[in-house]
C-alpha cells in the first residue's frame, strides 16, 4: 500500500478527558499516518458521517466515562447500515477486561487498555489495514 493510512480518532459521548486521544493522534501522525481528531462530544452518527466523508481506514474510539458498551456498538451498527463496515474500529479508555468480549462481538476489532504503548497500537493498525487490503 503506497498511500498513508487514514485514521479518525474520535470521542463519542460527553466525556471530556482527551489526553489519551490527543496522545494517540499525535503518535499515529509520528508513525506516518494521516490523522483526523473529531474533538469532544461527538455522537456515533457524527463520527460515522465524518469517517465516511474523510474516507478513513480506521476509527479509534476513546471513552473514559463508562458509556463504551452503549456508544461503541452504535458506531459499528451505523457503519454497517451505511455500507461502510470495512472501516476498522478500535477503542481505548477506562474499559474493564470483562467488557472486551462484548465489544469484540459487536465488531470492535481491538481494545487498547491503559498501559498499551502507542507503538503497539500503531503496529496493530498497520497490520489490520494490510490484511484488509489483502497485501
Amino acid at each position, binding site marked *: 500500500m503506497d498511500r498513508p493510512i487514514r485514521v479518525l480518532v474520535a470521542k463519542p459521548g*460527553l*466525556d471530556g*478527558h482527551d489526553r489519551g486521544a490527543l496522545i494517540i493522534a*499525535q*503518535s499515529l501522525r509520528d508513525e506516518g499516518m494521516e490523522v483526523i481528531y473529531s474533538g469532544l462530544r461527538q455522537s456515533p452518527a457524527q463520527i460515522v458521517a465524518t469517517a465516511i466523508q474523510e474516507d478513513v481506514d480506521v476509527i479509534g474510539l476513546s471513552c473514559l466515562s463508562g458509556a463504551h458498551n452503549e*456508544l461503541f456498538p452504535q458506531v459499528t451498527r451505523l457503519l454497517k447500515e451505511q455500507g461502510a463496515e470495512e472501516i476498522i474500529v478500535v477503542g481505548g479508555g477506562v474499559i*474493564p*477486561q470483562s467488557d472486551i468480549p462484548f465489544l469484540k462481538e459487536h465488531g470492535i476489532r481491538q481494545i487498547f487498555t491503559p*498501559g498499551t504503548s502507542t507503538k503497539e497500537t500503531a503496529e496493530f493498525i498497520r497490520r489490520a489495514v494490510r490484511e484488509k487490503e489483502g497485501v
Partner: protein
Amino acid sequence: MGGRSLTTENFDEVYREWEEKTRQLLEKYPEQRERFETLSGIEVKRLYTTRDRKGEEMEKIGLPGEYPYTRGIRPTMYRSRNWTMRQYAGFGSAAETNRRFRYLLEQGQTGLSVAFDLPTQIGYDSDDPMAAGEVGKVGVAIDSLEDMERLLEGIPLDRVSTSMTINAPASILLAMYIAVGEKQGVPAEKLTGTIQNDILKEYIARGTYIFPPQPSMRLITDIFAYCAEKVPRWNTISISGYHIREAGSTAVQEVAFTLADGIAYVQAAVEAGLDVDRFAPRLSFFFNAHNHFFEEVAKFRAARRLWSRIMKERFGAKNPRSLQLRFHTQTGGSTLTAQQPDNNIVRVTLQALAAVLGGTQSLHTNARDEALALPTEASARVALRTQQIIAYESGVTQTVDPMGGSWYVEALTDEIEERALAHIERIDELGGAVAAVEQGYMQREIQRAALETQKGIESGEEVVVGVNRFRLDQEEQPELYRVDPALAREQVERLESLRQRRNGEETDRRLAALKRGAEGTENLMPLILDAVRAYATVGEIANALREVFGEYEPIG
C-alpha cells in the same frame, strides 16, 4: 574528613574536600543516572546544604499563619484540626448516592463531595438525546430540585459541608442546594460548602463547558456577588489545577495555570465592581498530588506564597483571609494503573502524605480500582482509611510544616515559584488567562508535556511499577462496581412524571424571566433560584441561557 568536625567557619573548605572525595568515588561507583530530575524537569542535586539558601530566607518562608503563608495558612494547622476528609462520590440515582453518602458519614468522613454525571455537568436532562449512554455513569443524575431533595434527604445541611463538582451549570446546582436548605429550615447564611465553578480549566483541560468564556465569566461573578451577600460561608469557586495536571501538565504548569485562572476571576470580579476583600476570602483552590514526593510538597508551599503576593501586590487586598490560599487536594488519578491495582494503594498513600505535608485543608484519596471503573464500597473504604492512618497513626500532624527549613524542599519551593511566575508573566503578555485559553496557549503547553511523559514511559526512562517494570504474566481481575443500566430508564421516567405534576405555566414564566435577565445585565442568581423553585430542570435552565449566550466552540 580527617576527623575534623564541621563548623560554620570551615564549612566551605570541608565541603570542597567532601566533593573531591565523592568525585573520586564516582569513578569507581557511578550513580544510576547522569542527571536526576523532578517530573517538572527541575534538576535534583546530589545534596542540599546550607549553601543552597540565598539570604532573605526568613522573609520568604515566614511563620505559619503569617504572610506569605509558605508554611501554612494557620499557626497551628493539624494540631488544632485535621484536614477535611472529603471523598468524591456519586453515581446512578439520587437515592443510591444518598445511601453512599450516609455510609461514608457513618465511616467517619467529615464532608460530602458530590460527583454529578456528565449530562448534569453539561446542562442536559436525562432524556436529552445528547445524554444517551451517560446517565448516572460518572456521577449522580440530577434533573430537578426533586432529585436534589432526594440526594440530600436526611443529611443535616447546617452540620455537613458539601462540595459539588459542577462548573458550567454551577449556579443552577447551587440554587438547588439553597432551595433544599430552605425546605430543611436551614437559612442560606448557614450553608457551608464549595462549588467548583471554575470554567477556565474546563476549556483548558476537562471539557465540560457549555457557554463561551465571556458569559461564563459573568455567571461566575454573579455567584461571587450573590453569595457575598446571601450565602457568606460558601466557597464560591474552587480554582482547579487538578484537571490541568491530569491532562498532562507538569507541577510547575499546574501552579502557574491555576493561579493565572485565579487572577482572571479576581480581575473579572473587580471589574464588575466588587470589593476584593469582600469576595476573595471565599476563593478556594484544588490541586493534584502526583508522584514526585518532594516536588509535590514544594508545589503547595510555592503556590501559597505566590498567591498571597499576587493578592497583595496586584490587587491590593488587605484582609489576611484574602491572601491565604486554601486548597483541597486529590491524589493523581492518572498515576493509577489498571495493572496490579493494589500498587495504587501505595501510590495514593505517598501522594496523600505529600498533600498533608504540603498543608492541605481537605483531601480526597483515590481508590485502588479507579483505573478500571468507579470504586466499589470496599475500595472506597480503604481509600478513606489511608487518610485516617496518616491523620491518627503516623504522627506527621503533630508539628506544623515539618518540611520547612529542609534545604532541599526550600530550594525546590523557590525554583517552582520562579518557574511558575515566568509562565504567569507569559500569560499576562498574551492578555490574561481568558485570552490565553482562547489562543490555546495552555492547551498546547499541556499537550507537549503529556507527550513527553508518554515518551518517557514508553522508553522506560520513567518507571511505572507493574506497567513498564516489574510486570506480572497473569493479571488478576478485581471485582468491579457496575452501574445498573435500569437506573437511566428510571431516571427518565421520574423526569417525565415531574413534568406532568409541576405547574407548567409557572415554570415557563420563570424560564422566560431568566432569559430576559440573561439578555440584560442583572445578577442571574435570583432568577435561577426562582426557576429552580418552580421545578424547572437543569436542561431547561441551561437551554434558556444557551439561547442567549450560545455555546462554546473549541479551537480546532
